[in-house]
């Protein structure tokens, strides 16, 4: 008996009277700090597994490069189809990345621990979605001008394109988080996830392509951008709630 952990046990018994107040309840981390840690964890993990990070971006680059080859190298025609190509590519690329949003965390029990952490699961899910946007939406927005330039779009359109893809991808990430959470319990959920998410993403596609088109032709693009922003705000306020509820169901 004495050969084992008894010294440590002895210490604990002596410490017992003071340890009573030592429960962590009062030291509960503030919500924003916990959400910040959840965000930092996902960012750090993403940089440890760069393959997952690069995959949607490579997909986006490939799609936008295939169009000139398949349709025609004529710049006037490419310029005409550029908004559609950019947005269809961005939508599919962000869909591709969605599958990874919660999957690993569901397998290794991280979501379970989040749900039992005593913190708001909604905030933690929001933090995860924010990390997802930083890792896919933002890089897509930064890559979109390069793809646009290769489609013959003038440099003057670049700020408008970046803005529309950046704002639109926020909405896409949030809408996608609901679909990703709902399909958590299902193996090979990719097809179902697309079916669930695509119809909801169509407004983003329509307004995003319109904003990009206006940016290219030099028209007033504020109206479609504002509609995109409205969709993003709607997503920020409602999507984490829905996704958190879906995650809870998947844990049962």
């Amino acid at each position, binding site marked *: 008996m004495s050969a084992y*952990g008894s010294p440590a*046990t002895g210490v604990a018994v002596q410490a017992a009277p003071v340890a*009573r107040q030592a429960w962590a309840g009062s030291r509960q981390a503030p919500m924003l700090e916990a959400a910040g*840690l959840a965000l930092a*964890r996902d960012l750090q993990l993403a940089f440890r597994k760069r393959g997952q990070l690069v995959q949607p971006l490579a997909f986006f680059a490939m799609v936008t490069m295939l169009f000139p080859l398949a349709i025609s190298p004529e710049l006037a025609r490419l310029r005409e189809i550029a908004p559609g190509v950019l947005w269809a590519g961005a939508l599919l690329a962000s869909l591709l990345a969605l599958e990874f949003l919660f999957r690993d965390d569901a397998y290794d029990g991280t979501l*379970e*621990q989040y749900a*039992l952490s005593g*913190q708001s699961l909604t905030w*933690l899910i929001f933090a995860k979605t924010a990390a997802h946007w930083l890792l896919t939406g933002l890089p897509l927005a930064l890559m979109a001008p390069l793809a646009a330039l290769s489609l013959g779009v003038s440099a003057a359109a670049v700020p408008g394109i970046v803005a529309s893809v950046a704002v639109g991808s926020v909405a896409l990430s949030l809408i996608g988080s609901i679909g990703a959470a709902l399909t958590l319990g299902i193996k090979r959920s990719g097809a179902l996830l697309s079916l669930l998410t695509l119809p909801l993403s169509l407004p983003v596609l329509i307004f995003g392509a319109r904003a990009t088109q206006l940016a290219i032709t030099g028209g007033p693009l504020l109206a479609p951008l504002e509609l995109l922003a409205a969709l993003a705000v709607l997503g920020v306020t409602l999507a984490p709630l829905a996704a958190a509820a879906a995650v809870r169901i998947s844990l049962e």
Partner: protein
Amino acid sequence: MHDERLDVESLHLWRGDRHVLRGVCFSLASGECLQVTGPNGSGKTSLLRAVCGLMYPEEGRVLWEGRDVRSDLRTFHCALVYLGHEPPLKADLSARENLRYWIGVRHRLGAAALEDALERVGASPWCERLVRTLSAGQRRRVALAGLALSMVPLWLLDEPTTNLDTEGQQLVGSLIAEQLARGGLVLAAVHHELPATVRDLRRLELAA
């Protein structure tokens, strides 16, 4: 000062058409450990998950300090830590990073406390290694460090001694003994008896 207390009242749980928990009742007071045994598939894990609120039992209640936990799950969750079959660790983070994120989401974590916990479970020499390179027993030890760090009254442990060597099993025993001495409550589902370091063990056997 109120004492922490867990009461489980006639819990019934169905999984599909299987009646897994058939009216499970027990009470657990401050400083008590309940060891739940039973053959595979008898519902040990389901019982733990129903108690912590991950599963919704069809009938029955769980009371924490006399109040139904469903009325305020967040407060209840602040008071418990649940350790499942698999340690909740990220394969691509080191042991130390894992603990910093896992426990840090719950409460503020001092660097010294973290080092102490790693030392305690014998993880200091390899705490910088990625968890994917650790053995199953080493991962279990990291999970135990998380347990030691969480400083909450109620521990729900699912097979805490799996994959551990004899010394590791004794470590589980002494961690539980300390938790009980502090006035904590431990509910453990096990196949093998908990180490003898845990005194005043109560037992609950689930039938298949």
